[in-house]
């Protein structure tokens, strides 16, 4: 393996990437299932009860990884979109389109679980906290990206327009984040801060990491399946797709 040079550019072609995406998707799907089951078991039964927040805190094992993933996926998506714009590689843009719904899902999940966490902890479903507000705006950015791509019929224009929007968004995300944070400190006194500098129990940290990697694997699995669907849809007029269908869908 080490002596053989892998030609990475080979996989920038949708034909070559299609079977690889299938394999990657299946593997990541299994890894995701195992990690999430283990992570959920640990977060419900193994991790100790928080001395301040009681049992209600356990939702952060879903909430925090989801919030991390929603931010991370936006950057990855913008990276793929930018690559598609610069190098004009079709597959990069397809990856960006495949990642967007997953990112939006995680952003929504983090908002939803945040509301469930906020009700017992803060006494309100929604607080105009800096983090909540910037997560909401991130969710809006995802929706804008998907709406723009959905309303353009021609795939090439959809890819490039989406790429410009994603890049503009990625420049704006830090500005939005800091402005929201500053706005928040100006308007209301210090809200309850999580953690407060106290170190985390190692079991808690491990659970959180397992859940994060589980979500990560899930994101890869779903993105790969979605990119396969996008490839098939866009290449439906080519011979290799016709042959694939004749062969019963096995690549």
């Amino acid at each position, binding site marked *: 393996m080490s002596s053989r040079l892998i030609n990475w550019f080979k996989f920038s072609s949708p034909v070559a990437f299609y079977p690889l995406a299938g394999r990657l998707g299946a593997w990541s799907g299994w890894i995701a299932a195992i990690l999430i089951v283990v992570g959920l078991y640990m977060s419900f039964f193994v991790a100790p009860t928080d001395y301040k927040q009681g049992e209600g805190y356990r939702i952060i094992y879903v909430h925090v990884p989801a919030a991390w993933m929603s931010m991370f996926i936006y950057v990855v998506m913008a990276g793929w979109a930018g690559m598609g714009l610069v190098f004009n590689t079709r597959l990069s843009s397809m990856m960006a389109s495949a990642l967007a719904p997953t990112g939006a899902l995680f952003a929504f999940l983090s908002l939803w679980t945040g509301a469930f966490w906020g009700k017992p902890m803060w006494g309100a479903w929604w607080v105009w906290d800096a983090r909540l507000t910037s997560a909401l*705006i991130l969710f*809006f950015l995802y929706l804008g990206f998907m709406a723009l791509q959905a*309303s353009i019929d021609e795939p090439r*224009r959809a890819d490039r*327009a989406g790429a410009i929007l994603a890049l503009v*968004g990625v420049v704006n995300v830090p500005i939005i984040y800091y402005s929201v944070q500053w706005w928040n400190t100006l308007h209301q006194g210090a809200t309850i801060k999580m953690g407060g500098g106290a170190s985390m129990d190692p079991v808690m940290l491990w659970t959180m990491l397992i859940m994060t990697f589980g979500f990560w694997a899930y994101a890869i699995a779903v993105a790969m399946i979605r990119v396969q669907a996008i490839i098939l849809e866009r290449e439906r007029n080519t011979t290799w797709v016709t042959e694939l269908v004749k062969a019963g869908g096995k690549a």
Partner: protein
Amino acid sequence: MLEIFFTVLRRDLLLVIRRRSDLFTTLVFFVITVSLFPLGIGPEMDTLRLIAPGVVWVAALLASMLALERLFAADFADGTLEQLLLTPQPLSLLVLGKILAHWMVTGLPLVLMAPILGLQYDLSAEALGMLMLTLLLGTPALSLIGAIGAALTLGLRGGGVLVALLVLPLFVPVLIFGAGAVEATVSGLGAEGHLSLLGAMLVLALLLGPLASAMALRVSME
């Protein structure tokens, strides 16, 4: 090279002067929206004074967003935009000229109208001045950022609503510091920090907005 910038600016302004009704629709929308809030909230002056900066700013933001559709639409419809894209001069400069003309027609009237609306909300003279200053810094930034959205959605079905979805989240920082500066003045905190950041955003938008809009126009027109 600057000649093309002034040519485009002069042309766009001339077009608007020939059809003056365009000039007023945005302004009237702004005035009506701001005047609706007291009807919804109630006439207590203390409450109104408190919400005035936010209301005027949100209304200005929506007004300039609604005006965005007209930025490229007419030129797109009659094919002028295609010709503009073919000129040897840098497209971003051309776009900047169009945005400036558009702002002078839709943004500047809002800035000039704002103090009168502020009076409806019983703002002090100092706050009114600050409101005008923040709008003067902020509305050009809104036009510059919005131009990207207008260029991306050119000729798409449901373009108007789509522009809102694309552009409004990007307007958030401008809104925060624009309304924040007025609020800081009202509460006597001083607004220098807000103004500096608003200015910084305007400079950044001035730098990147025309480039991104030009790129978006090329994508939309190919």
